[in-house]
Every structure is written in C-alpha cells, then in structure tokens.
C-alpha cells in the first residue's frame, strides 16, 4: 500500500492550520455565528415575557442577574455571557472582514457583460447586511442596556424602557428593519454554517437544512417583532 512520504510544507499546530486557511476562518465564522444564533433564540424567548406584564418581565430581568448563585457572585453569569458573546462577535467580524477583503482581491476584474445572480437575496446581503446588523447591535446596547439612546431610561425598569422606546416611530422603524436584517442573515447563515462545518453528509439533507434554517430565522424574526408590535398595538403598555 502507498505510504505518505511527502514532506509537509510546515509543521503547523491545529490552531495555526485553522486560522491561516480560508476554510478554517469560515469555520470560525460558522461556530461563532451559531453560538450567537443560540443566544438570539434564548433572548427572543425571554423577551416574550413582556406579554405577562411589568411584574413578570422585570422579575425575569432581575433573575438573569442571579443565575449561578451562590457559586457565582451577583450578575457574574451575565458578565461571563457578555464576554463570550463579545469574543464570538469580534472573531466573527474579524474573519468576515479578512475573508471579504481576500475575496474581492481574488476577483479584481468584473465581466463586461455582468453575471446573472444565482444566489438568493439573503446570500448576497451577508456582507452589507452583516455590517448593518453590527450597527444595529451597537445602537440596541446603547438603547436598552446602557440607556443613553433611550427616550426615558430607568435603570431598574426594563419594562418601562421598552414601552418608552416603541412610542417613537423612528425607533420602531430601526427595530423592525434591524430584526428583519437578523432574520435574513440567519436564514442564509444557518444553512451556510452547516455546509462550512461539513455537517451535511448526504445530498438529500440539503432541503432539511434549508427548512430548519428558515424556520429558525422566521421564529427569531417574529418573536423579536412581537414586542414592538405589542407596544404599538397597545397590547403592552
């Protein structure tokens, strides 16, 4: 039988091999992206507590600060979660920027005729949609976590802050557009991550992955949209 006698170009560690390759960087995007999707799902479900009134919602927000007690000190869990998400986001965006720059450099000349676009809208908006998503994220944190962008911020009244937000038409607009961007990104992202991680072993599974990704994207989008719509329609006040 054959033997591998090839001298490898360089003995790289596993981490170096992953980080220096286009496939590895894409895998980092897939893992961090899926981590953020899992967080979004939990975040969305938590938000729905708003329909049970200020007592339940504010109680839920206060409980988040007690997770892990008494092992973890007050709000430690929350800070750990924030740190993990921040690392994931930074890794995701770093890879997105590095790969996008490389991709553009690899195709310096366009076809004079133009190309037909086979890819879906969600696929074509991953880059600029992702950037819009990043801006929305910053605004969202300044609004409901830090409070500086909120019309009437009360540090101990998350319910009050949400209701204050969605009285303003342009804040509603920002949220609706932002959440739709999230949905679009996850719609292509979930399926794409599965391809990148090599999770599809047989061709037939493709449709299943697309359906699961789209269902997840739809659930996340509708769940997040329910809150501003609830305030706008007076269901939440």
């Amino acid at each position, binding site marked *: 039988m054959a033997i*591998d006698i*090839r001298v490898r170009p360089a003995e790289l560690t596993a981490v170096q091999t992953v980080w220096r390759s286009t*496939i*590895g960087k894409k895998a980092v995007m897939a893992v961090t992206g899926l981590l953020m999707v899992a967080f979004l799902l939990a975040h969305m479900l938590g938000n729905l507590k708003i329909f049970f009134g200020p007592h339940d919602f504010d109680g839920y927000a206060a409980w988040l600060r007690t997770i892990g007690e008494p092992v973890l000190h007050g709000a430690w869990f929350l800070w750990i979660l924030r740190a993990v998400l921040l690392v994931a986001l930074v890794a995701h965006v770093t890879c997105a920027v590095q790969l996008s720059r490389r*991709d553009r*450099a690899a*195709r310096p000349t366009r076809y004079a005729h133009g190309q*037909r676009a086979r890819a879906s809208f969600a696929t074509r908006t991953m880059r600029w949609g992702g950037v819009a998503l990043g801006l929305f994220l910053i605004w969202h944190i300044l609004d409901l976590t830090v409070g500086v962008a909120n019309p009437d911020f009360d540090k101990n009244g998350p319910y009050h802050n949400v209701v204050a937000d969605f009285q303003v038409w342009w804040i509603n607009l920002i949220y609706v557009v932002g959440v739709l961007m999230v949905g679009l990104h996850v719609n292509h992202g979930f399926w794409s991550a599965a391809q990148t991680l090599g999770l*599809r072993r047989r*061709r037939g599974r493709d449709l299943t992955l697309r359906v699961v990704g789209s269902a997840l994207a739809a659930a996340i989008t509708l769940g997040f949209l329910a809150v501003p719509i609830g305030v706008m329609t007076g269901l939440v006040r």
Partner: protein
Amino acid sequence: MKITVRIWRQAGPQEQGALVAYDLDEVSPDMSFLEMLDVLNERLILGGQEPVAFDHDCREGICGACSTVINGRPHGPEQTTTCQLHMRSFSDGDVIDVEPWRSRAFPVIKDLVVDRAALDRIVQAGGYITAPTGTAPDAHATPVPKPAADTAFENATCIGCGACVAACPNGSAMLFTSAKAAHLNALPQGQPERESRVLNMVAAMDAEGFGGCTNTGECVGSCPKGIPFQSIVDLNRDFLRAARRR
C-alpha cells in the same frame, strides 16, 4: 444566422484590453462556438489582422482547455464546455460578449487565453497517490465498494477547466480542489494520504490567491461536468478533521 461577437482583445499580459465587435454573416446553427471563432479568425488572417487567441484542444468536451466566458457565463448559456456549445443556442441578430476567465490567479496571457497553472500546482500538492508504479494491478486486488467507486468517478470527471473559478464572485477554486480531493478520498487507495492531501491541497489553493468559498453555488451552475456542491461540504469536513488531528 447573422451575429455580432464582442470579443476581449488584449495583446499581451501587460497590455490594456477592450471588447472589440465583429459582425459575422454566415453562421450555421450547427457550428460549435469554437468553429464560429475559427471562421472569424480565417477572415482576420486573410485581412492581415491578428487572429483571436483562444484555448482549445480536444474539442469534444474532455480536455478542459477551452475557456471563454460567454454573455457573463463561463462556457456560455448551456451547462457544457465552450467546444460543445453550438450556435443553435443563440438567435439570429444576437450580440454575444466573449471574455476570458476572470480571477487574480488566472492572469490573461493574450485575448481569451489565461494562465491556469495555479490549478496544476494545487494538484501537485496532493492530487495523487504515492504508489509504486509497475504493471497494472489485478482489477480485484483492492475491492472498492460501489458507492465509493461512484463518488470517485463522479469527481474524477472534473476536467480542470476552471469555469468554477471564473463563475465564483470570490474567484474561489473550492469546487475544483474539492473534486480532486474527493476523487481520491473516496477510494481505498487514497486513504493513507487522506489528511496530508487535504491539508496540502488547501494550503496550495490559498497560497495561489484564490478567494474563499461563501457557499454561493455559482460554481456548480457553471461546471460542465456537474461536480456536486456536496464535494465542497466533504472537503470542509475532511479539512477540519485533519486540522484537529495535527
């Protein structure tokens, strides 16, 4: 048929190029696309002009030499090779744009001819098995399961034309590389070098300056041999497993 072809003319690697229009009056629908270019070239030569340089060899869809982007699609409107595309795919009066493969890794040499040696270097990095040669072994010396043989054969049909790279908005060579890796990775003879093959071929692919894959699937739509997207998924999995085991 009367047609107008607008062809990318570029005198050399460092020269500026541009689309130049040529009218052709007596085009038969049964001509292949390359025969149509032959007719044009005869006319240019008789008129003392420089003929259009284009790559071709077998003219039967098996060598992968022919390589033109026709109306924005590598190999044109049908999913076949340029040499197997016929003028009946076009209509009387059409204006047809003909351009070379576009990718940083495929520099234009002249007109429609590009340098595709980058693909050869990817194959040199691992697209083979290190077996002692000699007389052909008995066909049953190494049993190959039927599904593995089918996968290997399907991927082995890649002719290395580079249409996948030309179609990809990122100029990525993932479909080509994955076909070459999948062909050998499916077979028992390919197993001993499976991991080094994948690591080395992907390293070579990245070193050539091809872009990364964004799972867009443009490549699959332009591949004359129908190499499936599944091969890219399998390359991803093989690469990540090989990297973990370093």
